């Protein structure tokens, strides 16, 4: 997605940061709440579409602004959450740049899955080593990052790639492989 100008990337990134605040509110309003990890979605989208520096900023500023304005996440949770989301933004952005299989969905899934794993592992490590040193165990990591988050992970795997595809269909971001005709999906 080389064709987007720096200004456009910057403003798309701003929109994603704003969504880090607005999406959890919307989810909250109909009771889906935090099980679906709504704040993660804009960060992945930002990394995948705008590149890693913007993904990084979104991963830091998104939860920080939301926390400052609404206390969700609570200040105490903010540092680990920032680590997790920043890794999502950076890793998904870098991989989208490197991985080019000529198939959009393959690129998206590789970037997404690696980013999800990297983010959860690194956030767990950050927690164990820095933020809650000593009182944090492997079991807590497994339950916190793998078990209770499965609905959110499912949503991420199911919808984020097709969301990126929809944005391309709507011509809001450039086609990754422009020769592919719109309409016939290459999976």
């Amino acid at each position, binding site marked *: 997605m080389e064709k987007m100008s720096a200004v456009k990337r910057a403003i798309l990134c701003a929109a994603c940061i704003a969504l880090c605040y607005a999406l959890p509110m919307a989810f909250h309003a109909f009771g889906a709440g935090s099980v679906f990890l709504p704040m993660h979605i804009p960060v992945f989208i930002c990394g995948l579409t705008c590149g890693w520096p913007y993904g990084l900023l979104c991963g830091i500023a998104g939860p920080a602004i939301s926390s400052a304005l609404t206390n969700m996440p609570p200040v105490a949770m903010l540092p680990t959450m920032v680590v997790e989301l920043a890794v999502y933004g950076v890793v998904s952005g870098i991989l989208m740049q490197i991985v080019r299989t000529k198939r959009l969905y393959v690129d998206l899934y590789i970037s997404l899955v690696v980013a999800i794993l990297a983010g959860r592992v690194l956030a767990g490590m950050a927690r164990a080593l820095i933020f809650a040193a000593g009182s944090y165990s492997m079991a807590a990591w497994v339950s916190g990052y793998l078990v209770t988050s499965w609905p959110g992970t499912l949503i991420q795997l199911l919808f984020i790639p*097709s969301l990126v595809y*929809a944005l391309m*269909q*709507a*011509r809001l971001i450039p086609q990754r492989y422009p020769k592919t005709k*719109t*309409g016939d*999906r290459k999976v």
Partner: protein
Amino acid sequence: MSFEIKSLSYVYQRGTPLETPALENVSFSIGDGEFVGIMGHTGCGKSTLLHLMAGLLPAPAGTVLIDGEDINRKGYDRSVLRRKLGVLFQFPESQLFESTVEKDVAFGLKHSGLSTKDIEQRVQWAIETVGLDYSRVKGQSPLGLSGGEKRRAAIAGVLAVQPRHLILDEPTVGLDPMGREALLELLVKLNRDGMTILMVSHDADSLGEAARRLLVLHQGHLAADGPIGQVFADMDAMADWGLGVSQSREAAGLLARKGLEVPQDITSYRQLLPAVLTALKGGGSP
């Protein structure tokens, strides 16, 4: 009666310093098969009224009856309401999300219990009714359509449910003149086939052409309710409410001032032209 609204009131942000009344004691009813327009200056409460009438906001004071049933009653089945009442919001194209037009139009039929075949027929009917080429667009992504086509696809999604009553919020905004004309024609046709239509709009010309009755909301109150020609006739009152009238109505007023005997309850171009011809020919009486 399609809609019976009884002493409906609504206050935003109740109990905070930002408390603002949106509706105060509004009552009216709308019969089956009517085509009613609602006008009002920005912030008059028309959007709140629309949400309350569609059961999208709970009514804290007053009642909303649709086909004689209180939609805020405990145990009232909202999915029944969704099937008989279609709502088309401003810029409805922003609701499109599915991967194909066909799937998007069928979205509202998901919980309808219809067979796959019936759904397909309904979808085809809806897409053709809004003037899109079914075989061309059905497999396309709705997001890749042109602006006007997107609007049509979104309208098809609302029509596919075949609602008995249709509420529209500013449906003509953002359409080119041709698109607007086509939409009004469609609405008039649906109305003729028996659909109750309630259209909230700033566009006096469109209302003048399509609606037969007009409600005016002013600062949360029902300021006027009557045949649209009658409401438009009092241009001073309309101006007081911050509203304009249709160009045809204005032209009729100007012509009258110039001494031509044209009736003052004209609202649309279709009425204006013959009226002017008659006035020119016979000096008033045909």
